[in-house]
């Protein structure tokens, strides 16, 4: 008997089609997975009852260890035990080396595609991340009792395209469908239900073990826009521990260097004291020395919260400086912030809470476990995206996943809205007619990154009729692409002089599976050169056709009157040559043939011009002109 969860009214799934989904917080130090069960979002525990999986992968002789199992090897076997791979993903080797010069790993591969050398061979950071994801996905599967529809993975708001794409690739490698990548601060805001508020400015203060991030978000009609991010990639709760440890050493009358075991004992005591002082006013620190024969084999003293506060005050002040800078970047005043969300275990420290509260002049939100809040937000979003909520609770898209554009002559795609544009958005571009007297225009709406129509996804076609007959290129047709807050695309076309208009609505976000998007993006990268060549060839062919058509029309009209037999034959020959050449794929030859035709018809063009002026002037007096 399969186990059931309570569904929203009318949304019970049919057997074997449970829409199982999970949210994954793929963190630098720790990772978590969460899911919504019977309407309640919660983090999923492993078989040892632990929510948190350390983001560590250890490549041993014949196994790959992940999480707690790998942790032990980070000291013993640092070169084969990859920690904090999130700092490496989607980055070039030179970038990594300049940012983190002290990493214990051996790198190989090209600069823009570095690999880690382990005893199990070269490992791409994407592969390492995939190992962590696999373990979290397996946990979700056994915890939810089935295959996952997909996952939402959180990424820092400052992650660039390459880092986001690499994170997605890691998920693909781990064999799981990505419903969406969600910015970590946005996930935290979603966990507190702030997305239902329609608008406001939200600060997300994220103080983890080793990193500090501050993000300023603006919520507008349910869409989160990142106004500014800031922080310090080398400041976190670990620095609190170090400050306390230094204090313990001083109080105990010890001096560095100390034995490894004593250092470890001190740092454990420091971490313990920090945690205890979040709920207690004072704590007893006790150090036992290995040398039991020494006069003082044990040191014990009291540490109170006041002392802790004075030790970590400089660090907290440093985070507030970053907050001030982020506010300045966002052009927002502290009192314009509507909510402050606390993320990361270190935000449990009372001094952090009170300082942040004072800085933003409002009590920060702390009711959700700050270690779990990002994963919980991701789980809520995953639940919605998997289709377990009524439509009116549909969370909104925040960016366009792929470029949107339309077909132009020769089967080329003109991009109107580039991918990753935040929505809602409206963009317009002007197009014109290709032939004389053209009164209708077919508009073909496409999605994708490639240059040719056949390589992109067709979304819709419609026609604009009633364009007044004009010479080719004279009509001004304004095509507007609009993606509203629900992710719906509408395309309208209007001829400017007559204002005739035509439009259509399409749903681009539902037309593609995330996997298709990945494939299409990968295609566009691997075919970039090929595509460019194809585009240039098509452009020349279109130009050749245009010239051929114009000259043929002119010949039919005036050829007999204005040209002698010899001239006429020369032009006809050039036209035939142009036609054959344009069928080939030799860009330069087509270009040459167009030039040749232009040259040979220049006299003809001049005579036509003179003739038309004479016709126009005939019967008119000079005054009228």
């Amino acid at each position, binding site marked *: *008997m*399969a*186990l*059931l*969860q*309570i*569904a*929203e*009214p*009318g*949304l*019970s799934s*049919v*057997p*074997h089609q449970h829409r199982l989904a999970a949210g994954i917080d793929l963190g630098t130090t720790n990772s978590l997975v969460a899911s919504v*069960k*019977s*309407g*309640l979002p919660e983090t*999923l*525990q*492993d*078989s040892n009852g632990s929510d948190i999986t350390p983001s560590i992968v250890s490549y041993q002789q014949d196994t790959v260890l992940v999480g707690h199992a790998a942790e032990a090897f980070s000291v013993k076997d640092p070169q084969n035990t990859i920690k904090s791979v999130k700092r490496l993903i989607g980055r070039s080797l030179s970038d990594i080396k300049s940012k983190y010069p002290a990493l214990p790993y051996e790198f190989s591969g090209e600069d823009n595609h570095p690999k880690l050398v382990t005893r199990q061979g070269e490992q791409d950071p994407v592969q390492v991340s995939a190992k962590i994801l696999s373990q979290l996905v397996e*946990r979700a599967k*056994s*915890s*939810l*009792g089935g295959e996952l529809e997909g996952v939402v993975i959180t990424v820092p708001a400052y992650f660039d395209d390459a880092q986001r794409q690499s994170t997605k690739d890691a998920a693909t490698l781990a064999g799981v469908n990505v419903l969406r990548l969600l910015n970590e601060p946005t996930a935290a805001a979603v966990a507190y239900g702030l997305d239902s508020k329609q608008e406001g400015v939200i600060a997300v203060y994220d103080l983890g073990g080793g990193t500090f991030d501050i993000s300023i978000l603006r919520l507008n009609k349910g869409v989160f826009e990142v106004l500014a991010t800031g922080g310090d990639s080398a400041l976190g709760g670990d620095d609190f521990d170090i400050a306390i440890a230094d204090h313990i050493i001083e109080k105990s009358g010890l001096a560095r260097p100390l034995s490894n075991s004593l250092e470890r004992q001190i740092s454990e005591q420091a971490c313990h004291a920090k945690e205890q002082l979040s709920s207690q006013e004072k704590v007893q620190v006790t150090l036992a020395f290995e040398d039991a024969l020494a006069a003082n084999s044990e040191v014990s003293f009291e540490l109170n919260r006041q002392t802790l506060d004075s030790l970590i005050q400089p660090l907290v002040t440093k985070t507030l400086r970053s907050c001030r800078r982020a506010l300045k970047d966002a052009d927002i005043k502290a009192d314009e912030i509507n909510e402050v969300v606390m993320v990361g275990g270190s935000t449990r420290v009372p001094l952090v809470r009170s300082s942040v509260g004072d800085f933003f002049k409002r009590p920060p939100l702390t009711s959700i476990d700050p270690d779990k809040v990002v994963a919980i937000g991701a789980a809520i979003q995953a639940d919605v995206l998997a289709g377990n909520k009524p439509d009116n609770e549909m969370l909104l898209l925040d960016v366009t996943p792929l470029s949107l554009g339309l077909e132009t002559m020769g089967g080329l795609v003109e991009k109107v809205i580039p991918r990753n544009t935040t929505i809602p958005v409206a963009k317009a571009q002007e197009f014109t007619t290709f032939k004389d007297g053209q009164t209708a225009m077919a508009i073909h709406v496409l999605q994708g990154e490639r240059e040719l129509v056949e390589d992109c996804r067709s979304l819709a076609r419609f026609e604009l009729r009633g364009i007044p007959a004009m010479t080719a290129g004279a009509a001004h047709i304004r095509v507007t692409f609009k993606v509203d807050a629900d992710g719906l695309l509408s395309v309208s076309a209007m001829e400017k002089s007559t204002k005739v208009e035509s439009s259509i609505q399409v749903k681009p976000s539902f037309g593609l599976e995330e996997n298709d998007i990945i494939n299409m993006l990968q295609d566009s990268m691997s075919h970039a050169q090929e595509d460019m060549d194809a585009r240039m060839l098509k452009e020349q062919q279109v130009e050749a056709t245009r010239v051929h058509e114009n000259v043929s029309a002119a010949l039919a009209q005036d050829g007999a009157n204005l040209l002698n037999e010899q001239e006429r034959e020369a032009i006809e020959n050039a036209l035939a040559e142009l036609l054959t050449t344009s069928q080939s794929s030799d860009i330069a030859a087509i270009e040459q043939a167009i030039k040749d035709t232009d040259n040979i018809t220049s006299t003809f063009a001049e005579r036509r011009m003179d003739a038309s002026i004479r016709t126009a002037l005939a019967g008119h007096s000079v005054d009228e002109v």
Partner: protein
Amino acid sequence: MSISMTPAATERVKLFLANRGKGVGLRLGVKTTGCSGLAYVLEFVDSLNDDDEVFNVDDVNIIVDGKSLVHLDGTQLDFVKEGLNEGFKFTNPNAKGECGCGESFNV
């Protein structure tokens, strides 16, 4: 006609209803689908339908529509943990056979 819940199920249902913060109770039902004919429905309820019957089981409103009730009379709802997976389970005296996966049944 009777529907019952184990203490574990009652506790969980109350938690989930409180967490959702709205609605009038929990719907138990069956619908025709699946490889063995019928499948269980377990949903939150925002509004009652005309043919709904409401049972008060341990201070929880359990709502069953008339047609489903025929197939669910005497059913006990349980909340169980199987490995990492946990969820609700129907113990239904009317069910004669289940499909291999247990997600659907016949009467």
